[in-house]
């Protein structure tokens, strides 16, 4: 911005006593502080330019002793400073007898004669500022002209009125008031008094629209729970996204404590947990595979997201079954009054959403679909792409029925399907196939009955059904037949919760019952004569839980939240349970017994209390200290030995040989709102300890493995970290910046041999151990039609396993890996940019469009997703695999039709 703003002249005159000499009229003005001011012409007595320096603080300058002759004068004033363009003003005035006799003129310019030009003469700009909805005049609105408050700024009076004096020309006027969206106007002063009345839009609704925070303005400071982030959907839509697909999981990774192993990671790691330690719920139904196209896009339909709550610290007792965190995503309810159609097109997918009120105010449905089927074009672009297939789709139907004042019924159906084939995934071993395809789908159904019992109590009862079916397909050579390896997870659940809200107390009690049925894998030969039908026994299990959450204020400063969940897990038959000799590797040799259980018989139970405690101590109106403790048990997990689970990775319930994971988390935090709740500062530290984490024996293979315990090892994990974040929640510029220091270390030792431990039983880095993380996100709402967003992400490279040596076998050289995860990838960093253009026609119509122009990885950083070593023709070479290694520009279009 040009810093010269000196077109604001006061030409003052000061007289001397002597009448005969027309001396010392004062010529004065204001320029950029510290700039050089040169006066050319006029001062007859000096004969040359007069050079002055503007005051370094106020910018005022004055020429005290310049003699002018009588009559019209012209003075050119040039102000220059080293770092900007000089500005020039020419002043015309007349030195008159009246002046010389010395009437002190303090306010008025010497000359008001129109004949000598107009520059430097202010005109009046005035107007009234109203609330756009209530039409109430707004007092105290800051009116800033040309970005400089101190010179020409003013504030509105009690009647919302303001008045300013402005020079000729164009001026930018910005009006700001806390609680309102800033308004920008450009006014042209043409020589008459101008009126500018402005309606300001309240951000009462926008307060929650703003970036990441928890409920409302200062709830984050007040609530006795910590480690909770609420990611606003509108924020999510405004930040840059890869290929224009609004992506929840990528957005979450900009929050402290949420990381992943890289761009193609099938899930996120929260506070040192594995991806399967997060309970991901979509309208209360669990999501077993959160991404499409192997980690590139997340499965949450962006257009119908309602709220996103991430519990990474205190987890309410109503949630259970996973050890690390809960991501609770709800879909918005259908509009019961107005039909609406929305949709969009990006390079990746096409989307459509319809709100259909069926009985006005009573019953409505929401239908949304998204599909990516563009891969048929790939071979047309290049032969290289001929063997790539990637299609996905997801759809939602949600119905909301307000039965009467006391009862509502909500039902959600969600379906998602993926087909994926690439050379970047491993083949199905031991089947003679020409390629390997991944096909996975899920059907999630939920129905919830909500009954208000009294103004203070309500009862929610939910039933849900989730069927996740991943399949690996292997087409046979010269035959139309495809061999399939199909597995499935079926979860059925009923839960009910009673909520009672009393002044300064809140109580929730509930119960839940889950039935898991897992088909770990069935090989379906189809028409093949080569492959046998092979199936692994179906697993059945029950998880029963009771919970109570109680929140209470204890005096003005202290509040407490106490939760208790009691979970009981029952592994059910039919099953054949092996017993192994303790202390030996679990394999065919160490079996000492095996017991057969019939259908419905309980083969093993686990369970115990899961306390959840949160304490808040208020430090003044805007600050608080909080402490929390959590214990969670996990009975269902992914068993896989890859860096990130494949969609087809095996889900496994705990059983007699695989103990449930138990995680304890201790957190403490400081929370501060400042600058009228515009900014929020949070500092949280945590320590987490997990027992019975799962690791793998070298060469572990879970495909069609009836006894997975022979392939895995159990150990322990510890994670700790400090997360700091400042967010600006309101205003034209919103955003956040956070820095996290976090470590995750594992220890696995079941015996002395190489196959029974990792790194000899010492603590080693988890795959996602990334000590330093810095994320920043910024959104600038320029006006109603434009917003810009920038996000920056930096983190230490993740660990990988590098060879500790090479061996030569038969003249061919191979790597040797002596130690796990001892090396690190290069640091990861990336800058993304988005320009959102809303309703470019600028007319209010029923059709509103939005363009989003995104550049992902703006400066084209070659971030390594992985480093690997390959032996080619007897030589070992190191490679890095990059995903999104170049800047990727994309354009997406979205519309709403009301």
């Amino acid at each position: 911005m040009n810093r010269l703003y000196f077109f604001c002249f006061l030409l003052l005159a000061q007289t001397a006593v002597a009448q005969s000499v027309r001396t010392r009229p004062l010529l004065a003005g204001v320029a950029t502080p510290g700039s050089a001011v040169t006066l050319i012409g006029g001062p007859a007595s000096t004969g040359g330019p007069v050079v002055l320096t503007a005051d370094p603080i106020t910018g005022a300058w004055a020429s005290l002793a310049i003699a002018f002759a009588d009559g019209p004068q012209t003075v050119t004033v040039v102000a220059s400073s080293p770092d900007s363009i000089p500005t020039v003003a020419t002043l015309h005035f007349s030195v008159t007898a009246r002046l010389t006799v010395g009437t002190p003129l303090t306010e008025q310019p010497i000359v008001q004669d129109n004949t000598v030009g107009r520059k430097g003469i202010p005109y009046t700009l005035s107007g009234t500022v109203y609330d756009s909805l209530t039409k109430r005049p707004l007092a105290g609105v800051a009116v800033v002209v040309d970005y400089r408050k101190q010179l020409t700024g003013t504030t509105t009076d009690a009647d919302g009125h303001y008045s300013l004096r402005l020079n000729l020309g164009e001026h930018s006027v910005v009006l700001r008031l806390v609680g309102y969206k800033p308004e920008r106007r450009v006014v042209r002063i043409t020589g008459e008094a101008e009126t500018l009345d402005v309606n300001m839009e309240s951000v009462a609704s926008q307060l929650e629209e703003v970036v990441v925070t928890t409920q409302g303005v200062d709830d984050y400071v007040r609530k006795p729970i910590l480690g909770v982030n609420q990611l606003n959907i509108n924020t999510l839509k405004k930040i840059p996204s890869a290929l224009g697909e609004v992506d929840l999981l990528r957005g979450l990774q900009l929050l402290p404590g949420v990381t992943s192993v890289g761009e193609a990671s099938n899930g996120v790691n929260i506070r040192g947990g594995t991806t399967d330690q997060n309970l991901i719920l979509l309208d209360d139904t669990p999501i077993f595979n959160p991404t499409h196209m192997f980690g590139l896009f997340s499965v949450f339909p962006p257009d119908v997201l309602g709220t996103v709550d991430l519990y990474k610290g205190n987890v309410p007792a109503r949630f259970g079954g996973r050890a690390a965190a809960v991501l609770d995503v709800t879909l918005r309810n259908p509009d019961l009054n107005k039909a609406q159609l929305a949709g969009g097109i990006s390079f990746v997918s096409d989307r459509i959403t319809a709100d259909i009120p069926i009985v006005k105010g009573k019953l409505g449905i929401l239908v949304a679909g998204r599909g990516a089927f563009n891969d048929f074009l790939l071979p047309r672009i290049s032969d290289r792409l001929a063997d790539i297939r990637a299609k996905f789709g997801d759809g939602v139907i949600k119905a909301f029925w307000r039965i009467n004042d006391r009862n509502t019924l909500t039902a959600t159906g969600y379906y998602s399907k993926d087909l994926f084939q690439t050379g970047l995934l491993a083949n199905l071993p031991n089947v003679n196939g020409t390629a390997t395809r991944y096909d996975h789908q899920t059907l999630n159904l939920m129905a919830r009955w909500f009954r208000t019992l009294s103004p203070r109590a309500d009862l929610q009862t939910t039933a849900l059904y989730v069927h996740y079916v991943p399949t690996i397909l292997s087409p046979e050579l010269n035959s139309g037949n495809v061999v399939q390896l199909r597995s499935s997870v079926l979860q059925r659940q009923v839960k009910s919760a009673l909520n009672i809200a009393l002044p300064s107390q809140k109580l929730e009690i509930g119960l839940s019952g889950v039935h898991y049925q897992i088909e770990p894998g069935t090989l379906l030969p189809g028409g093949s004569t080569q492959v046998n039908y092979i199936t692994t026994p179906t697993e059945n299990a029950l998880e029963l839980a009771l919970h109570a959450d109680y929140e209470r204020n204890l005096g003005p400063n202290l509040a407490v939240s106490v939760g208790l969940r009691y979970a009981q897990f029952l592994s059910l038959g039919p099953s054949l349970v092996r017993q192994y000799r303790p202390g030996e590797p679990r394999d065919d040799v160490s079996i000492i017994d095996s017991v057969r259980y019939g259908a419905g018989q309980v083969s093993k139970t686990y369970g115990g209390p899961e306390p959840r405690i949160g304490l808040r101590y208020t430090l003044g109106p805007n600050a608080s200290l909080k402490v929390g403790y959590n214990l969670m048990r996990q009975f269902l997990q992914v068993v896989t030995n890859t860096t990130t689970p494949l969609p087809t990775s095996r889900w496994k319930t705990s059983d007699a040989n695989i103990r449930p994971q138990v995680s304890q988390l201790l957190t403490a935090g400081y929370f501060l709102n400042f600058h009228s709740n515009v900014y929020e500062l949070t500092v949280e530290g945590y320590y987490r300890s997990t027992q019975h984490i799962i690791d793998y024996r070298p060469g572990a293979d879970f495909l069609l493995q009836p006894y997975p315990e022979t392939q895995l090892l159990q150990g322990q994990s510890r994670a700790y970290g400090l997360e700091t974040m400042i967010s600006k929640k309101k205003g034209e510029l919103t955003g956040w910046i956070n820095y996290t220091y976090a470590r995750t270390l594992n220890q696995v030792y079941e015996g002395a041999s190489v196959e029974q431990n990792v790194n000899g039983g010492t603590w080693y880095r988890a795959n996602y151990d990334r000590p330093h993380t810095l994320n920043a996100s910024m959104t600038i709402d320029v006006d109603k039609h434009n917003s810009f967003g920038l996000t920056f992400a930096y983190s230490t490279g993740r660990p990988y396993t590098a060879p500790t040596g090479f061996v030569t076998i038969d003249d061919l050289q191979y790597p040797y890996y002596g130690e796990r995860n001892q090396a690190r990838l290069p640091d990861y960093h990336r800058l993304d940019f988005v320009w959102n253009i809303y309703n470019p026609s600028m007319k209010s119509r029923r059709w509103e469009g939005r363009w989003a122009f995104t550049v992902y990885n703006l400066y084209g950083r070659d971030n390594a997703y992985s480093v690997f070593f390959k032996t080619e023709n007897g030589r070992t070479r190191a490679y890095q695999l990059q995903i999104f290694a170049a800047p990727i520009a994309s354009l997406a279009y979205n519309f709403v039709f009301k």
Partner: protein
Amino acid sequence: MHVRQYGLIGLLGLLLGCVSTYDPDLALNARLVVVSGTLTDLPEQQVITLSRSRSGRDSANVSTPISNAVAEVVVNGAETLLLTETQPGTYVLPTGFRGKVGNTYQLRFRTSEGGRYASSEEAMAAVPGIDRAYDQFNPRGPKTNADGLPIPANDVYVDFADPAGTRNFYLWRWRLYETQAWCATCKQGRYVLRDIGPLGSGPIEVIGCVPDSSLSVTNLYDYTCRGNCWDIFYSTSIDVFADSYTNGQPQAGHKVASIPVYQRDPALIVIEQLSLSPNAYRYYKLFADQVQNTGTLADAPPAPISGNVKNQANPAENVVGYFAASSVAVNRYKINRQNVTSTGKFQGLFYAQNGRVPNVEVPKGETEYGKGLPSALCIPSRNRTDQLPPGWNQ
């Protein structure tokens, strides 16, 4: 649709990923005993090699043979066969020894420093024969490097019948005979060969490359072969298979090799189908996953591999390599390359090996050795033969 196509170009980048070479800063520190040897029932010399691989700060890999070890193979836990060291680190079984299906074999050796090592007992399992070998032209064959482009190839497949009732584990290896037309290259010199007896039919005296300072130091002259000559290529990748999903079924279309189309001339591939023990299979599978099946979106973290040889005094010492006993079924298959349809340029074996076309000597006129251009001898080695490979004329 245009805009979308550009988008797809972006998308393809994601799907293909993008692979480039990487320069890791490795902290190497390994000193390992390496054992290699597979006893077979083929009528050929049975060889075991013993070496030490050392990696350190100063060098990535130094392999030194373990000489003067006392090595023996114990058959069925009773009969002991002493091995003879023919070259440093190379130990051979007595001439005429052939493995037998059903026997067990154990390798034991004592190094000159006194370390005693022994393998597990490996039983030689039977292997079914290869019913059929055949090939298909694949215009997008293997990549020579992970960051390279696919090259046209003949994919070679085998069919075999997996025996019912037994667990079977397989390993394939092959060698390929390609006709070679160019037998010698002289750098700053000329190939000299003199007929002693009658021209073309009598004895000859081979002098080889004779330096010629009138030529540039970088000058290369290439000489055609005097007679038939074949270059031999060996499989370098590990191809294993277990019948866990396919027990007792006829197997069709197991790809054993992807042979780049170096030239349009026919080639002969000799495919060996080996039986493995379950442990040997596990070892080779894990080894293959760590050294060649890497670079996927979800690799398994590599881990130390332990073979079946242990230090008797220190079981914690990890010995690399596997002592295996395999029955072998051999199939010789002629790739006639009639199915090569690609428009790709196949500039011949010489071009594929050297990256240039042959440079024929400009004759200096008549010399003391006679006039005209000499042709070079095909000198047999591990990678070249002048003997007609069995199966070539079938």
